[in-house]
């Protein structure tokens, strides 16, 4: 019973963190205006993302309930989240087309006729359920990897750019070394070395993905370091750590936000590619697409598995990219003054 507790705590922490972030954004006028502008420009895309986030959170909140009489005990114990519970018992024996009342092959009557809006897969699992489960995996891959990547890249990039000299040499050497290896090979090697798990996929994606943003952060720090307000801070006797925290990092935040949003979609896509290679994360849309490959050659064709996963992936990434473009326009230093 530990797993559900941890899962609930994590979900709670994420929720609280989201609210804290929201409050922090509301309190800073620059960010408040930027988010307000974003909401004005991209209400639909933001709504879509909120929907996916909501589904992912529901999928993370464990449902703790006793086993009722007549329920399949194994299924109940496996069903841990709210979403799992909602789809409990929607099991069929084999393929069913969307809204069908009989099995796709053979025509045997379904246990829940007409209750599968996206059909079922070869094992009789509801495709809508699997698709909704995929949202959590996608957000986890994108979010967790970014959470590893961005602080890492900021740490190395800012210290390399700010202090220069030997630190810069070391960071640049590491970056060049990583950048000189083929990304996909490195990714596969890392996942193989660490074993297949969600965390190891995230770490592998982070290790191969931090170089780009690190270089960006380093370059921007090099520029900021020479600016008059940093010089002025030194002339007023501000210490180096304080200059970095107060004058360098806040001026990199727009880059962080833009990079996060744009990196997110890239990461989710990378995971789909990894799944296609057979080393992705269980339950991801990439895996659904991979499984659906063979179904396309069946006759009559099984199209709903591929379509559901592909559409979910497409809609999420489209929304993220729309938001990302808008964020970049709003936070771009060159247009910052006109917008705020």
């Amino acid at each position, binding site marked *: 019973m530990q797993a559900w507790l941890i899962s609930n705590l994590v979900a709670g922490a994420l929720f609280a963190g989201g609210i804290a972030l929201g409050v922090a954004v509301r309190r800073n*006028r*620059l960010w408040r205006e930027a988010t307000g502008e974003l909401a004005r420009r991209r209400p639909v895309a933001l709504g879509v993302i909120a929907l996916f986030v909501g589904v992912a959170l529901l999928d993370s909140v464990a449902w703790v309930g006793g086993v009722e009489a007549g329920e399949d005990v194994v299924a109940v114990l496996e069903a841990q989240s709210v979403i799992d519970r909602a789809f409990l018992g929607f099991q069929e024996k084999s393929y069913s087309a969307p809204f069908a009342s009989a099995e796709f092959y053979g025509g045997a009557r379904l246990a829940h006729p007409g209750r599968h809006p996206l059909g079922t897969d070869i094992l009789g699992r509801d495709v809508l359920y699997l698709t909704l489960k995929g949202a959590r995996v996608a957000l986890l891959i994108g979010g967790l990897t970014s959470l590893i990547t961005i602080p890492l890249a900021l740490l190395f990039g800012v210290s390399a750019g700010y202090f*220069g*000299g030997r630190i810069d040499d070391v960071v640049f050497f590491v970056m060049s070394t990583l950048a000189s290896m083929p990304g996909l090979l490195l990714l596969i090697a890392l996942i193989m070395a660490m074993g297949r798990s969600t965390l190891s996929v995230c770490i592998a994606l982070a290790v191969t993905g931090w170089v780009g943003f690190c270089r960006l952060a380093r370059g921007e720090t090099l520029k900021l370091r*020479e*600016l*008059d*307000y940093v*010089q*002025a*801070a*030194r*002339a*007023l*006797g*501000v*210490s180096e750590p304080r200059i970095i925290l*107060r*004058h360098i990092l*806040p*001026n990199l*935040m727009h880059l962080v936000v833009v990079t996060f949003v744009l990196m997110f979609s890239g990461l989710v896509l990378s995971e789909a590619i990894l799944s296609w290679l057979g080393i992705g994360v269980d339950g991801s849309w990439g895996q659904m697409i991979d499984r659906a490959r063979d179904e396309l050659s069946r006759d009559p064709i099984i199209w709903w598995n591929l379509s559901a996963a592909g559409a979910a992936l497409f809609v999420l990434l489209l929304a993220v990219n729309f938001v990302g473009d808008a964020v970049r326009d709003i936070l771009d230093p060159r247009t*910052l*003054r006109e917008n*705020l």
Partner: protein
Amino acid sequence: MSSVLEVEGLATSFPMERGRVAVVDGVDLCLARGETLALVGESGCGKSVTALSILRLVPKPGRIEAGRVRLGGREIQGLPVTEMRRVRGREISMIFQEPQTSLNPVVRVGAQVVEAIRLHERGSREAARARALELFERVRIPDAAERLDAYPHELSGGLKQRVVIAMALAAHPKVLVADEPTTALDVTIQAQILELLRELQRELGMAILLITHDLGVVNELADRVAVMYAGRIVEAGTRAEVLGQPRHPYTQALLRSMPALAKRGERLAEIPGTVPWPGNWPAGCRFSTRCPRVMDVCRAREPEATRLSPTHTARCFAVAQELAT
């Protein structure tokens, strides 16, 4: 004369193609309480590096090679870094050329002034904010209370420069180094800022080291003037001496090239050539390549400073000869 700032033999070098070159080479300055000294020169003559060297803020790969800087009687060149940080802001403060970039764009201006205050003073955030408001009023920012919560991009250039000055004054420095404080502003605002600096100096009794290439600004504000050329001070004296009776050929040429003194319809006088790059300085007097009164000795040896009055010196063989005859 009690001086708050004494600089002796200051030399700062930067690496060039042919090894390290002293961009500032043996500069002596002296600044009394409540006095304004203007450091004048063309671009690239080492004015700003001199100022940064005094605060020990020379950017890498520059290096201070020699010299003593005494601030309020205390030698500060050898101070440890943490001690030096305490000197900056509290005893000597600096304002920069560009008010547009001298303020952090993502922090409210009030918070930036509060930060400057709390660096050097214990006390609550509220007390610091009250002090910030007082400083804003002191630098004549209209609607000071509202402006505390403004972001830099919401202020005009002149207001930004006032905020910068307020920050520099936060810890009551004895010396204010102003690196071209009005260059980036338009003319009407320039006059206001100069007026403000003059008032603040009168009220607070601080000394100002004014770095500029604008002789008009010098005439407005300076008590004494030091003219710099190619890393050396070539002429120094009171404002009346240097601007009224310039002796060094460079100062004379500089004054002749001022549009305000030129006659209408006449071609403006200019100094032929450009300041030689550091490292390409001629042997002997550094002005010898452009000097109208150049003699053989100028190309062979560097002139020493010749004392023309208790306050007036010029570094020129021709001036020394005139004086001798």
